């Protein structure tokens, strides 16, 4: 009897020790592999990463959470970076990838070496990696659905796209075109590439505007709304409804218009803090929790009534942002399990 109790206790202790070892991530090292840092969104993304991971490291939740950014936004460079991170002994790599498929080889090698790879924003298709994706198509469609409510009579639309050849640009544009196909009262009369940059968007819109009929609304992808507004103003044309993309200058312009003439629009984009969501997801996986491979991150949408509040929380010249907590990550995971 005593022997049996003892055996049970040993087994229980062993089990406890084992589960404890799995549940403990304080020795685990997480790295952020980032392909690009040259715009305000990416800068905010890196700042959010620091803001959330530094306290997490200090609190002993993980041993390290170091960000690495490649200089050239090149696939080869990032592939080499991933290999280096594996060699340096990181247990998980949180990845914003330069390409959805060209990094698959390097990601597979990392998985084979026992490293957890969590891709977000710029996701990878390699099945062994986790993906925190954004439903960009839905984001584009939501813009048209908003317009449908706002102007049921329809009208001419000008579309400002992002960087040609990038997955995100294709998806948002597909969503917009799908929305327009379902709502034939809208017609896209012009489409330009603004590369998510106010100055480029301004130049592109200024160039096409003289050839266009009256524009009821401008559908955008973020980082281009303010430039579009400037181009309309310079051409002396009435300001249409311009969908914004959460940049501070866009929100500020919107606020000015709202105060001056009751201007109404909406603003939607991805919070750069999604990097912190990816961090918590990686931590959960290292913790041995069951996490589905495909997760979906919510958009950050700003409407007429919460404009002031969001503007106040946004750093001058920055992007509206939210940082995620471990609980937020848990919710996203639970939602994906359903």
């Amino acid at each position, binding site marked *: 009897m005593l022997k049996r109790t003892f055996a049970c206790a040993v087994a229980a202790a062993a089990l406890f020790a084992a589960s404890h070892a799995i549940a403990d991530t304080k020795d685990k090292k997480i790295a952020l592999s980032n392909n690009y840092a040259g715009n305000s969104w990416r800068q905010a993304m890196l700042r959010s990463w620091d803001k959330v991971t530094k306290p997490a490291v200090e609190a002993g939740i993980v041993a390290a959470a170091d960000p690495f950014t490649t200089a050239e936004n090149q696939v080869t460079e990032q592939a080499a970076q991933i290999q280096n991170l594996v060699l340096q002994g990181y247990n998980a790599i949180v990845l914003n990838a330069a390409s959805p498929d060209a990094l698959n080889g390097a990601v597979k090698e990392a998985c084979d070496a026992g490293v957890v790879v969590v891709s977000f924003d710029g996701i990878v298709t390699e099945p062994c990696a986790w993906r925190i994706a954004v439903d960009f198509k839905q984001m584009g469609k939501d813009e048209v659905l908003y317009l449908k409510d706002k102007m049921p009579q329809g009208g001419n639309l000008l579309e400002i796209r992002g960087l040609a050849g990038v997955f995100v640009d294709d998806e948002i544009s597909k969503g917009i075109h799908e929305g327009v196909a379902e709502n034939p009262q809208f017609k896209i009369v012009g489409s330009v590439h603004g590369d998510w940059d106010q100055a480029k968007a301004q130049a592109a819109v200024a160039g096409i505007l003289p050839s266009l009929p009256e524009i009821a609304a401008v559908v955008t992808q973020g980082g281009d709304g*303010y430039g579009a507004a400037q181009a309309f103003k310079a051409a002396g044309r009435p300001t249409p409804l311009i969908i914004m993309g959460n940049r501070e200058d866009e929100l500020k312009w919107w606020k000015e218009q709202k105060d001056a003439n009751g201007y109404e629009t909406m603003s939607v984009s991805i919070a750069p803090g999604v990097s912190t969501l990816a961090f918590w997801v990686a931590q959960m996986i290292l913790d041995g929790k069951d996490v589905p491979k495909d997760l979906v991150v919510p958009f950050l949408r700003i409407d007429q009534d919460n404009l002031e509040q969001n503007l106040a929380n946004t750093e001058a*010249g920055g992007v509206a942002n939210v940082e995620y907590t471990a609980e937020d990550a848990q919710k996203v995971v639970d939602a994906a399990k359903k």
Partner: protein
Amino acid sequence: MTMLRRIADKPWLWSFVAAFATWLATIAFTGGQGGEQLLTAAFTFATFFVIVGIGQMFVITLGPGNVDLSIPATITLAGSVAMKVADTQDSMILLSLVAALACGLAVGVFNYALILILRIPPIIATLSSSFVVLSTAIAYGRGLRIKPPPMLADFTTAQVAGVPVLAICVAFLAAVMGVVLHRTVYGRSVIAIGQNQRAAALAGIKVERIRFMTYVLSAMLAALCGYLFSGFSGGSSLSMGEQYLLASIAVVVIGGTSVAGGNANLPGLWGAALFLFLVQSMLNTYQLSAGLRYLATGLIIIAVIVLAGGEKARR
């Protein structure tokens, strides 16, 4: 006939012909609607290309291997520094201009130090310095977009009877630089070095001093562009310089300046800058897909260069 040939001998003419043809092709599509506004927009954006184009033209004229690839980074750095110094205060407009130009001066000196002291070829030196400069801009501005002072914004976007005020100022600047190029010892030295560096040195031209001045000039014009462009587009941003890397070289080459050096063409910069903007507008107006647009842009630019270069070969 001789008059015709004399006109055709001016290589800069082709860029204007191309710009005009592109403009016609665009408004033909819209049935003549919006032609004037399109021209206004073209002059507005061409102005910035011309500013950096002047600097790049002087550098390229120095002869084979000379090119300034740090222009985009310099634009970004100067823009961010100037907007941060100005802090949206009208009273700081001049001081922020000085700050921007000081950035340009520093980058120019740094570029030339790499070229002369470390003996790095200019193409590598300016490319690597651009990483340093852009990183400085990122560290300094942290990617935030700071609004320009209202007076600067008003000045850079002002128009008189449909003509952008800035374009008039830059036309004046270009005219002055034209005189500098053709009528001063400095400008003629640049051309002489480009034609034959050894001969120029033997003739007593201080080659290295002229090269130094030219790289500084290019960086300072880039800084000026960064300052004005920040005012125009409502603030500086980290990606504001990107489009100027190829554009600064393209306006020089399309404008009829010899890539081999020793033969500069200032008026052509205007034609080429207008042309570059109008080609994009034309292809956007035609609603071509992005892939086709890139293809057409490349083919049209090649066609214009071949036309302009072909005339020169026959001479």
